[in-house]
């Protein structure tokens, strides 16, 4: 008897999950998540290996007219709801005494990715202030100042919102927070891993796990 490899197993889960979302069936998607957890998949793996690639695949399918806008919105709502239900798995494992403020730039409506990043940081022991979508530069910086943030995380999905990153950086400098490390993420930074160098930021990461690892490296570097 041939047993599936871990990658084949994940691929099968992704297919079932995508099919559930394509049908707009939250219950079917819940079943896929529950079965996956029963099979030993962690919540982190669900985020990284199922939710994130499925969300990108849905975007690609919409681009090719194989997903409607309604299906895409419904799928996003289901993923966000499930992330809320999985939140218990992201309780802090350690305490790091570090604070992160993060969200999507102003006018940027996409927030699922940055919410995943928020949960991973929280699990890693950071105190996280997750601002969600379309956050004005002044709100990023005002909150960062108020909570004495150690780092700011900025998400952009649409290329035409990239200039708003510079807006946040300028606002930080104006408020005397110019030395605070900034990390960025989102589709343009996945497509071009070196793009972050165009901004005065420390790094970009293609996923939540790497964002946490790289952020901690900054503090190890001193």
């Amino acid at each position, binding site marked *: 008897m041939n047993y599936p490899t871990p990658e084949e197993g994940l691929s099968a889960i992704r297919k079932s999950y995508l099919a559930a979302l394509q049908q707009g069936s939250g219950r079917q998607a819940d079943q896929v998540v529950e079965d996956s957890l029963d099979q030993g998949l962690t919540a982190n793996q669900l985020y990284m290996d199922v939710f994130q690639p499925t969300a990108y695949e849905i975007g690609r399918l919409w681009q090719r007219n194989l997903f409607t806008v309604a299906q895409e919105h419904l799928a996003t709502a289901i993923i966000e709801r499930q992330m809320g239900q999985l939140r218990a798995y992201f309780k802090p494992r350690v305490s790091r005494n570090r604070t992160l403020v993060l969200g999507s730039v102003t006018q940027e409506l996409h927030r699922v990715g940055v919410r995943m990043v928020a949960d991973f940081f929280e699990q890693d022991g950071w105190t996280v202030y997750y601002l969600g979508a379309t956050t004005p530069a002044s709100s990023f910086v005002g909150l960062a100042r108020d909570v004495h943030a150690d780092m700011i995380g900025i998400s952009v999905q649409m290329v035409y919102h990239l*200039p708003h990153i510079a807006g946040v950086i300028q606002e930080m400098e104006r408020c005397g927070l110019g030395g605070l490390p900034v990390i960025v993420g989102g589709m343009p930074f996945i497509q071009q891993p070196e793009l972050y160098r165009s*901004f005065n930021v420390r790094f970009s990461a293609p996923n939540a796990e790497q964002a946490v690892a790289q952020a901690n490296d900054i503090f190890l570097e001193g």
Partner: protein
Amino acid sequence: MVQIPAPNVSAAAQAVFLKKHASIIAATVDRLLQEKGAYDHFGDQAERILSIGFEFTTSTLEACMAVNNADLFLEQLRWSQDRLPHDGVQVDQMAKGLDVYCVVIGELLPAAYAVEIIGMLNQVRAAQAAESPY
């Protein structure tokens, strides 16, 4: 995959382009709508739909110039070729639209600035043509 050199559009050219943002879109859409029959299938929504399209084009171009990265614009062109036919805009109409867009930039911006920006657009379009199997 094609890699386009950094375009280095000057800050002065970008500032003028930003200032003319709305008039570039309006003039491009106006000129395209004068083409008889091309956008009849959009009915009374034609102006709104074309305006949304060129708002996307213009905002994306501004962002790419700001970060000095033409490859990002190429990626958006690839995306558009995939998506827009499903929204009723054919690939040849996109090309025609960009031709008109460049003409309008040439008319509304001082020549030296227009050359910088049109040069970047032409580089991207040439790269896209080089990728095309047709």
